[in-house]
């Protein structure tokens, strides 16, 4: 490969990275300018971790081979990353309604850069919600060691990318805010219950088992739990797959969703 071509490719890569950062920064700027979004990011952990998680802890914890509180906290953290990223991605519909999509789509950058930037931008709110979940967990007396928290934080970009990519399959096609709100529920709710975020799915069979295996969140959760429970006696009861299998499944599903979702997003604006 000639030196000139290498320089050209490097310059193109840096330009795409710059676009990803610009799109991400826009999302974060908008997040800080929207008190409603900040409030929702903090209220959601109270609702999910405090109410749903608290209720399950009190009524379902007995008879399990592992501590339910920790299991549920990890599940809620990943669920929050997934759910808030998906909700954030629905702002693409707002961009369509305000014609801002045109401004992005007429720019000379890859459509993947636009979508990935959007996902990472949306994941900022998700990380705020994750922090809120930890605080609610702390109030409920459920804590994780710092090293495990840092590991979860290190995995969070991958989880957000998987969640954002998956939501793109529907969001990329939707043109109205009302439908987008419904779609977010459609994407996130089944995953919360079928992927093992709050209820163990080791014994799932039939359609529910197949659905759980098709959901990226199942593998994100299992990978995170593999990291958190590594070296403990509970590992076998909690973790379903080898971390390499989890990672490969996340990579595959995320890539497929990203390609399809980005295609839908770009084409739905262009093919009228």
């Amino acid at each position, binding site marked *: 490969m000639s030196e000139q071509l290498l320089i050209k490719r490097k310059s193109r890569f840096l330009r795409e990275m710059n676009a990803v950062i610009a799109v991400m920064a826009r999302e974060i700027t908008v997040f800080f300018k929207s008190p409603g979004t900040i409030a929702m990011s903090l209220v959601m952990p109270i609702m999910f971790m405090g109410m749903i998680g608290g209720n399950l802890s009190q009524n379902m914890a007995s008879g399990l081979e592992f501590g339910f509180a920790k299991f549920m906290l990890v599940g809620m953290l990943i669920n929050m990353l997934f759910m808030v990223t998906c909700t954030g991605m629905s702002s693409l519909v707002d961009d369509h309604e305000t*014609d801002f999509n*045109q401004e992005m789509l007429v720019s000379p950058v890859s459509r993947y850069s636009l979508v990935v930037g959007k996902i990472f931008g949306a994941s900022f709110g998700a990380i705020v919600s994750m922090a809120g979940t930890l605080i609610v967990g702390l109030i409920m007396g459920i804590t994780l060691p710092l090293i495990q928290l840092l590991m979860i934080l290190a995995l969070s970009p991958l989880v957000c990318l998987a969640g954002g990519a998956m939501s793109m399959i529907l969001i990329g096609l939707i043109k109205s805010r009302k439908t987008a709100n419904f779609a977010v529920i459609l994407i996130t709710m089944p995953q919360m219950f079928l992927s093992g975020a709050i209820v163990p799915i080791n014994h799932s069979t039939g359609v529910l088992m197949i659905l759980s295996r098709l959901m990226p969140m199942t593998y994100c959760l299992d990978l995170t739990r593999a990291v958190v429970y590594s070296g403990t006696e509970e590992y076998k009861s909690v973790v379903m797959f080898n971390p390499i299998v989890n990672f490969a499944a996340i990579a595959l599903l995320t890539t497929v969703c990203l390609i399809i979702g980005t295609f839908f997003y770009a084409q739905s604006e262009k*093919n009228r």
Partner: protein
Amino acid sequence: MNVIEVNHLVKRYKGTRTPSVDNINFSVEKGEFFAFLGPNGAGKTTTISILTTTLSKTSGEVKIAGFGINKDARKVREKVGIIFQRPSLDLQLTAEENIRFHACLYGVCGYRPAFKLMPAAYKEKVLELADVVGIKDALFKPMKKLSGGMQRKLEIVRSLIHTPEVLFLDEPTQGLDAVSRRSLWEYINTVRNQYGTTIFLTTHYIDEAEGADRVCIINHGKIAACSSPDELKTVLLKHELILDAKDRNALTAELSTLGLPYTVNSHIAVPYEGTAQALISKLNTELTVLKTHEPTLEDAYIEFLKKTGGDIQ
């Protein structure tokens, strides 16, 4: 050298029978000021959307700066700037944040989280452009606090920040006051002269197209006429003398005797060829009104639409 080449372009929207753009052909030379006129729904915005790669074509071939819009879409996007018909701003950002976002997507500079941290060249250009269109004071205000006219001016600044080779203006001055319109056009002409930027304009203010090198009229998706504004006026309209007299009957009788056609409205309009002097010298009736009427592009445009059955807005 042609910077825009359109050959047999057709666009048929999904679920429609008749094409919105029906087999049109035209080319625009580098540095040319090209005006694309037509009534609402004629196909102007559809054509611009295809040329800027935001809308797919049904068939035909389009090249911008030598690059095909399908094969080399990214290169085409690098070469063009556009002001859309409807504002496409993020109302949650400030004016400058909107410009910064655009500049970063077009690779003008690397992203920095604040204006103060941006490169000096970027800051200078933003301030210069904002000064020209008169929004310097509003640059750091939230978009929601800017009037419609101010937002339009901001879009103009944004479209010029990456110094495009071809600038597409889809009704750019809609909602602007007269002073802003004039200052904007002065600036666009400066940019054109300085950088040789090609201008592709659609507008409802026909007077804005008077300065164009070439005017194309599109109607019902087809190119109906394409020539310089002067040629268009010469072909479609004649110069007129506007006359009146205390004894209007005597004047009209005299015009009839001389075999000169005329129309009577508030005054008497007499079309002429050659010089006005030659016509006036033939008249003996004492005149109370004597004016010459130079046909404008707008007169020619309306006349053209009347003749071709276009919908006059």
